[in-house]
Protein backbone atom coordinates (compact mmCIF):
# COMPACT_ATOMS: atom_id res chain seq x y z
CA UNK A 1 0.00 0.00 0.00
CA UNK A 2 1.61 3.20 -1.19
CA UNK A 3 1.19 6.32 0.87
CA UNK A 4 1.67 9.71 -0.69
CA UNK A 5 0.43 13.24 -0.08
CA UNK A 6 -2.80 12.14 -1.71
CA UNK A 7 -3.33 9.87 1.27
CA UNK A 8 -3.21 12.79 3.72
CA UNK A 9 -7.00 13.34 3.80
CA UNK A 10 -7.40 9.63 4.49
CA UNK A 11 -4.91 9.89 7.35
CA UNK A 12 -6.85 12.82 8.78
CA UNK A 13 -10.05 10.83 8.49
CA UNK A 14 -8.34 7.92 10.26
CA UNK A 15 -7.16 10.30 12.99
CA UNK A 16 -10.73 11.49 13.41
CA UNK A 17 -11.78 7.87 13.79
CA UNK A 18 -9.17 7.53 16.54
CA UNK A 19 -10.37 10.68 18.28
CA UNK A 20 -13.92 9.33 18.33
CA UNK A 21 -12.72 6.66 20.80
CA UNK A 22 -9.55 8.16 22.28
CA UNK A 23 -9.43 6.10 25.48
CA UNK A 24 -9.77 2.76 23.75
CA UNK A 25 -7.26 3.61 21.03
CA UNK A 26 -4.78 4.96 23.57
CA UNK A 27 -5.05 1.69 25.46
CA UNK A 28 -4.32 -0.33 22.29
CA UNK A 29 -1.36 1.92 21.55
CA UNK A 30 0.00 1.57 25.11
CA UNK A 31 -0.40 -2.21 24.92
CA UNK A 32 1.54 -2.36 21.65
CA UNK A 33 4.31 -0.18 23.13
CA UNK A 34 4.54 -2.36 26.27
CA UNK A 35 4.68 -5.60 24.30
CA UNK A 36 7.39 -4.19 22.06
CA UNK A 37 9.35 -2.90 25.05
CA UNK A 38 9.28 -6.17 26.99
CA UNK A 39 10.30 -8.38 24.07
CA UNK A 40 12.95 -5.92 22.89
CA UNK A 41 14.58 -5.59 26.32
CA UNK A 42 14.91 -9.35 26.68
CA UNK A 43 16.39 -9.91 23.24
CA UNK A 44 18.61 -6.81 23.17
CA UNK A 45 20.00 -7.54 26.64
CA UNK A 46 20.97 -11.13 25.88
CA UNK A 47 22.48 -10.08 22.57
CA UNK A 48 24.42 -7.25 24.20
CA UNK A 49 25.72 -9.58 26.91
CA UNK A 50 26.98 -12.04 24.34
CA UNK A 51 28.64 -9.26 22.33
CA UNK A 52 30.31 -7.88 25.46
CA UNK A 53 31.58 -11.28 26.59
CA UNK A 54 32.80 -12.12 23.10
CA UNK A 55 34.71 -8.86 22.92
CA UNK A 56 36.38 -9.61 26.25
CA UNK A 57 37.07 -13.23 25.41
CA UNK A 58 38.73 -12.12 22.18
CA UNK A 59 41.44 -10.56 24.38
CA UNK A 60 42.00 -13.74 26.40
CA UNK A 61 44.80 -16.16 25.47
CA UNK A 62 44.00 -18.68 22.74
CA UNK A 63 45.22 -21.64 24.79
CA UNK A 64 46.09 -22.24 28.42
CA UNK A 65 48.55 -25.06 29.12
CA UNK A 66 48.43 -26.34 32.65
CA UNK A 67 50.54 -29.07 34.21
CA UNK A 68 48.56 -31.74 36.00
CA UNK A 69 49.26 -34.63 38.28
CA UNK A 70 47.03 -37.19 39.96
CA UNK A 71 45.87 -34.79 42.64
CA UNK A 72 45.17 -31.74 40.51
CA UNK A 73 47.29 -29.06 38.91
CA UNK A 74 50.96 -28.56 39.59
CA UNK A 75 53.26 -25.60 39.02
CA UNK A 76 55.56 -25.81 36.02
CA UNK A 77 59.13 -24.54 35.49
CA UNK A 78 58.69 -21.36 33.49
CA UNK A 79 61.75 -21.59 31.26
CA UNK A 80 61.24 -25.25 30.36
CA UNK A 81 57.57 -24.64 29.63
CA UNK A 82 58.29 -21.67 27.37
CA UNK A 83 60.97 -23.65 25.52
CA UNK A 84 58.60 -26.59 25.01
CA UNK A 85 55.79 -24.39 23.70
CA UNK A 86 58.13 -22.43 21.41
CA UNK A 87 59.18 -25.66 19.70
CA UNK A 88 55.65 -26.12 18.33
CA UNK A 89 55.07 -24.36 14.99
CA UNK A 90 52.12 -22.00 15.12
CA UNK A 91 52.32 -21.39 18.88
CA UNK A 92 53.18 -17.73 19.44
CA UNK A 93 54.41 -15.80 22.45
CA UNK A 94 54.11 -18.40 25.20
CA UNK A 95 53.71 -16.36 28.38
CA UNK A 96 54.07 -17.78 31.90
CA UNK A 97 51.15 -16.73 34.10
CA UNK A 98 51.38 -16.25 37.84
CA UNK A 99 47.91 -16.47 39.29
CA UNK A 100 45.77 -18.37 41.74
CA UNK A 101 42.90 -18.16 44.16
CA UNK A 102 43.39 -16.93 47.72
CA UNK A 103 41.03 -16.30 50.59
CA UNK A 104 40.27 -12.63 51.19
CA UNK A 105 38.46 -11.04 54.12
CA UNK A 106 35.04 -11.91 52.70
CA UNK A 107 35.69 -14.72 50.26
CA UNK A 108 37.92 -16.02 47.50
CA UNK A 109 39.71 -13.55 45.26
CA UNK A 110 41.76 -14.02 42.12
CA UNK A 111 45.41 -13.21 42.73
CA UNK A 112 47.39 -12.20 39.69
CA UNK A 113 50.85 -10.90 38.90
CA UNK A 114 51.40 -9.09 35.66
CA UNK A 115 52.90 -11.46 33.08
CA UNK A 116 54.63 -8.58 31.28
CA UNK A 117 54.94 -4.84 31.02
CA UNK A 118 51.55 -3.18 30.97
CA UNK A 119 51.26 -0.27 28.52
CA UNK A 120 50.75 3.17 30.05
CA UNK A 121 47.56 3.68 28.06
CA UNK A 122 46.10 0.67 29.86
CA UNK A 123 47.35 1.64 33.33
CA UNK A 124 45.27 4.86 33.45
CA UNK A 125 47.37 6.33 36.25
CA UNK A 126 47.82 3.09 38.19
CA UNK A 127 51.38 2.27 39.17
CA UNK A 128 52.33 -1.41 38.98
CA UNK A 129 52.58 -2.73 42.56
CA UNK A 130 55.90 -3.53 44.11
CA UNK A 131 56.47 -6.00 46.93
CA UNK A 132 53.97 -5.44 49.77
CA UNK A 133 51.53 -3.51 47.60
CA UNK A 134 48.38 -4.46 45.73
CA UNK A 135 45.88 -2.98 43.31
CA UNK A 136 42.43 -4.42 43.76
CA UNK A 137 39.16 -4.67 41.86
CA UNK A 138 35.98 -2.90 42.92
CA UNK A 139 34.63 -6.10 44.48
CA UNK A 140 37.60 -6.38 46.83
CA UNK A 141 37.68 -2.79 48.06
CA UNK A 142 34.58 -3.31 50.17
CA UNK A 143 36.46 -5.91 52.19
CA UNK A 144 39.23 -3.66 53.33
CA UNK A 145 39.77 -1.17 56.14
CA UNK A 146 42.66 1.25 56.48
CA UNK A 147 43.98 0.20 53.03
CA UNK A 148 45.27 -3.12 54.39
CA UNK A 149 44.43 -6.43 52.76
CA UNK A 150 45.14 -9.78 54.32
CA UNK A 151 45.12 -12.79 52.01
CA UNK A 152 45.51 -16.44 52.88
CA UNK A 153 46.80 -19.04 50.45
CA UNK A 154 49.72 -21.36 50.95
CA UNK A 155 51.02 -18.53 53.12
CA UNK A 156 49.44 -15.52 54.83
CA UNK A 157 50.17 -12.18 53.26
CA UNK A 158 49.43 -8.61 54.28
CA UNK A 159 49.42 -6.03 51.52
CA UNK A 160 48.85 -2.30 51.27
CA UNK A 161 46.26 -1.27 48.72
CA UNK A 162 47.72 1.46 46.53
CA UNK A 163 44.98 1.68 43.97
CA UNK A 164 41.70 0.38 42.66
CA UNK A 165 40.87 -0.72 39.14
CA UNK A 166 38.43 1.70 37.47
CA UNK A 167 34.76 0.76 37.73
CA UNK A 168 34.37 0.44 33.97
CA UNK A 169 36.91 -2.41 33.93
CA UNK A 170 34.77 -4.46 36.33
CA UNK A 171 34.04 -7.25 33.87
CA UNK A 172 37.78 -8.02 33.77
CA UNK A 173 38.97 -6.90 37.21
CA UNK A 174 36.10 -7.11 39.71
CA UNK A 175 37.65 -9.81 41.93
CA UNK A 176 41.31 -9.29 41.04
CA UNK A 177 44.18 -8.55 43.39
CA UNK A 178 47.17 -7.46 41.33
CA UNK A 179 50.45 -7.82 43.18
CA UNK A 180 54.17 -8.15 42.62
CA UNK A 181 55.41 -11.53 41.27
CA UNK A 182 57.41 -12.25 44.44
CA UNK A 183 54.34 -11.74 46.63
CA UNK A 184 52.20 -13.90 44.35
CA UNK A 185 54.75 -16.73 44.49
CA UNK A 186 54.88 -16.56 48.25
CA UNK A 187 51.11 -16.53 48.60
CA UNK A 188 50.59 -19.38 46.11
CA UNK A 189 53.49 -21.49 47.34
CA UNK A 190 55.54 -21.30 44.14
CA UNK A 191 59.32 -21.39 44.00
CA UNK A 192 61.28 -18.78 42.03
CA UNK A 193 61.32 -19.86 38.41
CA UNK A 194 57.99 -21.64 38.70
CA UNK A 195 54.80 -20.49 37.07
CA UNK A 196 51.12 -21.37 37.47
CA UNK A 197 50.54 -22.14 33.80
CA UNK A 198 51.33 -20.98 30.30
CA UNK A 199 49.26 -18.75 28.04
CA UNK A 200 49.77 -19.41 24.34
CA UNK A 201 48.53 -17.45 21.36
CA UNK A 202 48.16 -18.99 17.93
CA UNK A 203 49.21 -17.80 14.52
CA UNK A 204 45.93 -19.13 13.12
CA UNK A 205 43.02 -19.24 15.56
CA UNK A 206 41.45 -21.98 13.46
CA UNK A 207 44.26 -24.31 14.53
CA UNK A 208 43.11 -24.26 18.13
CA UNK A 209 41.83 -27.82 18.18
CA UNK A 210 44.50 -29.26 15.89
CA UNK A 211 47.52 -27.82 17.67
CA UNK A 212 46.56 -29.08 21.11
CA UNK A 213 47.88 -32.61 20.49
CA UNK A 214 51.25 -31.29 19.22
CA UNK A 215 51.49 -28.92 22.15
CA UNK A 216 50.70 -31.64 24.68
CA UNK A 217 53.38 -33.90 23.13
CA UNK A 218 55.96 -31.12 23.38
CA UNK A 219 55.84 -30.98 27.18
CA UNK A 220 57.81 -33.49 29.23
CA UNK A 221 55.00 -33.82 31.79
CA UNK A 222 51.23 -34.36 31.49
CA UNK A 223 49.35 -31.17 30.72
CA UNK A 224 45.77 -30.10 30.23
CA UNK A 225 45.12 -27.59 27.48
CA UNK A 226 42.04 -25.35 27.58
CA UNK A 227 40.97 -23.52 24.42
CA UNK A 228 39.34 -20.13 24.24
CA UNK A 229 36.56 -21.40 22.00
CA UNK A 230 35.24 -23.53 24.89
CA UNK A 231 34.87 -20.38 26.97
CA UNK A 232 33.23 -18.48 24.11
CA UNK A 233 30.74 -21.31 23.61
CA UNK A 234 30.00 -21.41 27.33
CA UNK A 235 29.33 -17.67 27.41
CA UNK A 236 27.16 -17.91 24.30
CA UNK A 237 25.08 -20.64 25.95
CA UNK A 238 24.78 -18.56 29.09
CA UNK A 239 23.56 -15.49 27.14
CA UNK A 240 21.05 -17.56 25.15
CA UNK A 241 19.85 -19.20 28.37
CA UNK A 242 19.29 -15.85 30.07
CA UNK A 243 17.63 -14.38 26.99
CA UNK A 244 15.36 -17.42 26.81
CA UNK A 245 14.30 -17.04 30.43
CA UNK A 246 13.62 -13.35 29.88
CA UNK A 247 11.51 -14.13 26.81
CA UNK A 248 9.55 -16.71 28.81
CA UNK A 249 8.83 -13.93 31.28
CA UNK A 250 7.35 -12.04 28.31
CA UNK A 251 4.73 -14.71 27.65
CA UNK A 252 1.98 -12.58 29.27
CA UNK A 253 3.03 -9.71 27.00
CA UNK A 254 2.81 -11.97 23.95
CA UNK A 255 -0.64 -13.13 25.09
CA UNK A 256 -1.57 -9.46 25.35
CA UNK A 257 -0.49 -9.02 21.72
CA UNK A 258 -2.69 -11.95 20.72
CA UNK A 259 -5.55 -10.36 22.65
CA UNK A 260 -5.05 -7.05 20.84
CA UNK A 261 -4.99 -8.81 17.47
CA UNK A 262 -8.12 -10.81 18.31
CA UNK A 263 -9.82 -7.66 19.63
CA UNK A 264 -8.96 -5.84 16.43
CA UNK A 265 -10.48 -8.61 14.37
CA UNK A 266 -13.65 -8.53 16.45
CA UNK A 267 -14.03 -4.73 16.37
CA UNK A 268 -15.07 -4.70 12.73
CA UNK A 269 -18.38 -6.38 13.42
CA UNK A 270 -19.50 -3.34 15.48
CA UNK A 271 -18.80 -0.93 12.63
CA UNK A 272 -20.55 -2.74 9.80
CA UNK A 273 -23.43 -0.26 9.66
CA UNK A 274 -20.99 2.68 9.65
CA UNK A 275 -19.00 1.16 6.81
CA UNK A 276 -22.19 0.33 4.94
CA UNK A 277 -23.18 3.98 5.20
CA UNK A 278 -19.81 5.10 3.85
CA UNK A 279 -20.05 2.63 0.98
CA UNK A 280 -23.52 3.83 0.10
CA UNK A 281 -22.04 7.37 -0.05
CA UNK A 282 -19.46 6.27 -2.60
CA UNK A 283 -16.56 4.84 -0.66
CA UNK A 284 -15.07 1.72 -2.20
CA UNK A 285 -13.91 -1.39 -0.41
CA UNK A 286 -10.32 -0.33 -1.12
CA UNK A 287 -10.95 3.08 0.46
CA UNK A 288 -12.27 1.48 3.62
CA UNK A 289 -9.37 -0.97 3.84
CA UNK A 290 -6.90 1.89 3.36
CA UNK A 291 -8.70 3.91 6.02
CA UNK A 292 -8.42 1.11 8.56
CA UNK A 293 -4.79 0.42 7.69
CA UNK A 294 -4.05 4.16 8.07
CA UNK A 295 -5.73 4.14 11.46
CA UNK A 296 -3.71 1.09 12.52
CA UNK A 297 -0.44 2.68 11.31
CA UNK A 298 -1.22 5.93 13.13
CA UNK A 299 -1.74 3.94 16.31
CA UNK A 300 1.07 1.43 16.02
CA UNK A 301 3.97 3.40 14.50
CA UNK A 302 4.49 5.79 17.46
CA UNK A 303 3.84 2.93 19.90
CA UNK A 304 6.42 0.75 18.20
CA UNK A 305 8.98 3.56 18.08
CA UNK A 306 8.43 4.39 21.73
CA UNK A 307 8.73 0.74 22.78
CA UNK A 308 11.93 0.15 20.81
CA UNK A 309 13.54 3.41 21.96
CA UNK A 310 12.72 2.72 25.61
CA UNK A 311 14.16 -0.80 25.34
CA UNK A 312 17.32 0.55 23.70
CA UNK A 313 17.75 3.09 26.50
CA UNK A 314 17.05 0.55 29.23
CA UNK A 315 19.72 -1.81 27.87
CA UNK A 316 22.46 0.56 26.74
CA UNK A 317 22.25 3.64 28.98
CA UNK A 318 23.62 3.08 32.50
CA UNK A 319 21.09 5.00 34.61
CA UNK A 320 18.20 3.16 33.00
CA UNK A 321 20.12 -0.09 32.49
CA UNK A 322 19.68 -0.90 36.17
CA UNK A 323 16.10 -1.90 35.40
CA UNK A 324 17.15 -4.43 32.77
CA UNK A 325 20.05 -5.72 34.89
CA UNK A 326 17.75 -6.22 37.86
CA UNK A 327 15.01 -7.84 35.79
CA UNK A 328 17.16 -10.28 33.83
CA UNK A 329 20.15 -10.97 36.08
CA UNK A 330 18.74 -10.08 39.49
CA UNK A 331 21.93 -8.11 40.07
CA UNK A 332 22.44 -4.61 41.37
CA UNK A 333 25.55 -4.10 39.26
CA UNK A 334 25.32 -2.66 35.81
CA UNK A 335 27.50 -4.31 33.23
CA UNK A 336 28.82 -1.87 30.64
CA UNK A 337 27.26 -3.59 27.66
CA UNK A 338 28.62 -3.31 24.16
CA UNK A 339 26.34 -2.41 21.30
CA UNK A 340 26.69 -4.57 18.21
CA UNK A 341 25.38 -2.12 15.62
CA UNK A 342 24.26 -4.47 12.89
CA UNK A 343 23.02 -7.07 15.38
CA UNK A 344 21.02 -4.52 17.38
CA UNK A 345 19.53 -3.01 14.24
CA UNK A 346 18.47 -6.42 12.96
CA UNK A 347 17.00 -7.30 16.37
CA UNK A 348 15.04 -4.02 16.48
CA UNK A 349 13.70 -4.59 12.97
CA UNK A 350 12.78 -8.18 13.80
CA UNK A 351 10.87 -7.14 16.90
CA UNK A 352 9.12 -4.36 15.00
CA UNK A 353 8.07 -6.90 12.38
CA UNK A 354 7.06 -9.42 15.05
CA UNK A 355 4.64 -6.92 16.58
CA UNK A 356 3.37 -4.91 13.65
CA UNK A 357 2.87 -7.64 11.04
CA UNK A 358 0.29 -9.66 13.04
CA UNK A 359 -1.46 -6.43 14.05
CA UNK A 360 -1.68 -5.02 10.51
CA UNK A 361 -2.57 -8.44 9.13
CA UNK A 362 -5.43 -8.72 11.63
CA UNK A 363 -6.66 -5.22 10.69
CA UNK A 364 -6.41 -5.95 6.98
CA UNK A 365 -8.09 -9.35 7.05
CA UNK A 366 -10.82 -8.28 9.46
CA UNK A 367 -11.60 -5.17 7.39
CA UNK A 368 -11.62 -7.00 4.07
CA UNK A 369 -13.94 -9.62 5.52
CA UNK A 370 -16.33 -7.03 6.94
CA UNK A 371 -16.47 -4.48 4.13
CA UNK A 372 -16.66 -6.83 1.15
CA UNK A 373 -20.45 -7.19 1.54
CA UNK A 374 -23.09 -5.06 -0.13
CA UNK A 375 -23.87 -1.77 1.69
CA UNK A 376 -27.46 -2.83 2.27
CA UNK A 377 -26.40 -6.00 4.12
CA UNK A 378 -23.89 -4.04 6.14
CA UNK A 379 -26.42 -1.43 7.22
CA UNK A 380 -28.84 -4.20 8.17
CA UNK A 381 -26.09 -5.70 10.35
CA UNK A 382 -26.62 -2.84 12.79
CA UNK A 383 -27.86 -4.23 16.12
CA UNK A 384 -30.88 -1.89 15.93
CA UNK A 385 -32.05 -3.76 12.87
Amino acid sequence: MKFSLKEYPLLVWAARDILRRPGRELLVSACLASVTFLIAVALLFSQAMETTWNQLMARAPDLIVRRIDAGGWAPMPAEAAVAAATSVPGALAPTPRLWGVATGPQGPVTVVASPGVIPETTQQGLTPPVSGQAIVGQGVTGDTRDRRLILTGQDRLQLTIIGTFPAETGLATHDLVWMAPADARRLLGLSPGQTSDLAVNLFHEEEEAAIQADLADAFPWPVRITGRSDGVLRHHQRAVHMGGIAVVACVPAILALVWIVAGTAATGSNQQAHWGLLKSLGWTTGDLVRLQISRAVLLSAPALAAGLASAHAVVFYPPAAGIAAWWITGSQRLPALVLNRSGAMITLLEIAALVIIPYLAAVFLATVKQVANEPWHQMMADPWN
Partner: protein
Amino acid sequence: MKSASIHKETKTPAPCKGAGLLVAIAVAATALVVFSLATDLLIRKDQGATVAGRWMKSLAPSAPTLWSAGTPLRHPETVHPGIDLRYTAGMESAR
Protein backbone atom coordinates in the same frame (compact mmCIF):
# COMPACT_ATOMS: atom_id res chain seq x y z
CA MET B 1 -44.51 18.72 14.70
CA LYS B 2 -41.65 21.18 14.74
CA SER B 3 -39.45 20.89 11.70
CA ALA B 4 -35.72 20.78 12.17
CA SER B 5 -33.69 23.45 10.45
CA ILE B 6 -29.99 23.90 9.86
CA HIS B 7 -28.94 27.33 11.06
CA LYS B 8 -25.32 27.27 10.04
CA GLU B 9 -24.13 25.50 6.92
CA THR B 10 -20.50 24.43 6.77
CA LYS B 11 -18.53 22.89 3.94
CA THR B 12 -16.51 20.58 6.18
CA PRO B 13 -18.65 17.95 7.86
CA ALA B 14 -16.69 18.06 11.12
CA PRO B 15 -13.69 19.95 12.50
CA CYS B 16 -10.38 18.36 11.46
CA LYS B 17 -7.93 20.49 13.42
CA GLY B 18 -7.48 17.93 16.19
CA ALA B 19 -7.16 15.11 13.66
CA GLY B 20 -4.55 17.00 11.63
CA LEU B 21 -2.62 17.72 14.80
CA LEU B 22 -2.75 14.05 15.75
CA VAL B 23 -1.36 13.02 12.36
CA ALA B 24 1.41 15.62 12.66
CA ILE B 25 2.31 14.47 16.19
CA ALA B 26 2.32 10.78 15.22
CA VAL B 27 4.53 11.34 12.18
CA ALA B 28 6.89 13.76 13.94
CA ALA B 29 7.27 11.61 17.07
CA THR B 30 7.93 8.46 15.06
CA ALA B 31 10.45 10.20 12.82
CA LEU B 32 12.21 11.77 15.82
CA VAL B 33 12.52 8.48 17.68
CA VAL B 34 13.70 6.56 14.61
CA PHE B 35 16.24 9.27 13.81
CA SER B 36 17.53 9.29 17.42
CA LEU B 37 17.85 5.50 17.46
CA ALA B 38 19.68 5.46 14.13
CA THR B 39 22.03 8.23 15.28
CA ASP B 40 22.82 6.40 18.51
CA LEU B 41 23.47 3.16 16.64
CA LEU B 42 25.87 4.97 14.31
CA ILE B 43 27.86 7.17 16.70
CA ARG B 44 27.88 5.19 19.95
CA LYS B 45 31.28 4.21 21.33
CA ASP B 46 31.52 1.63 24.10
CA GLN B 47 34.50 2.80 26.15
CA GLY B 48 33.92 0.56 29.16
CA ALA B 49 34.36 -2.74 27.38
CA THR B 50 37.38 -1.40 25.50
CA VAL B 51 39.15 -0.48 28.73
CA ALA B 52 38.17 -3.80 30.34
CA GLY B 53 39.46 -5.57 27.23
CA ARG B 54 42.85 -3.88 27.60
CA TRP B 55 43.17 -5.29 31.11
CA MET B 56 42.06 -8.71 29.86
CA LYS B 57 44.89 -8.54 27.34
CA SER B 58 47.45 -7.32 29.87
CA LEU B 59 46.71 -9.63 32.80
CA ALA B 60 45.65 -12.58 30.58
CA PRO B 61 42.83 -14.07 32.66
CA SER B 62 40.96 -16.80 30.82
CA ALA B 63 37.41 -15.56 31.51
CA PRO B 64 35.62 -12.36 32.59
CA THR B 65 34.57 -11.96 36.22
CA LEU B 66 31.03 -13.21 35.78
CA TRP B 67 31.41 -16.00 38.31
CA SER B 68 33.04 -16.12 41.72
CA ALA B 69 36.75 -16.68 42.05
CA GLY B 70 37.65 -20.30 42.65
CA THR B 71 34.71 -21.77 40.70
CA PRO B 72 35.28 -23.85 37.54
CA LEU B 73 33.30 -21.40 35.43
CA ARG B 74 35.53 -18.53 36.50
CA HIS B 75 38.72 -20.54 36.05
CA PRO B 76 37.90 -23.28 33.51
CA GLU B 77 41.57 -24.22 33.22
CA THR B 78 41.53 -25.54 36.79
CA VAL B 79 39.06 -28.34 36.08
CA HIS B 80 40.92 -31.60 36.36
CA PRO B 81 40.35 -33.99 33.45
CA GLY B 82 39.44 -36.94 35.65
CA ILE B 83 37.63 -40.06 34.52
CA ASP B 84 33.90 -39.39 34.47
CA LEU B 85 32.58 -41.49 37.35
CA ARG B 86 29.54 -39.39 38.14
CA TYR B 87 26.33 -41.27 38.96
CA THR B 88 24.16 -39.10 36.71
CA ALA B 89 26.25 -36.87 34.47
CA GLY B 90 24.45 -33.60 33.75
CA MET B 91 22.25 -33.60 36.86
CA GLU B 92 24.59 -31.39 38.83
CA SER B 93 24.88 -27.67 38.26
CA ALA B 94 27.87 -25.42 38.64
CA ARG B 95 25.82 -22.24 38.55
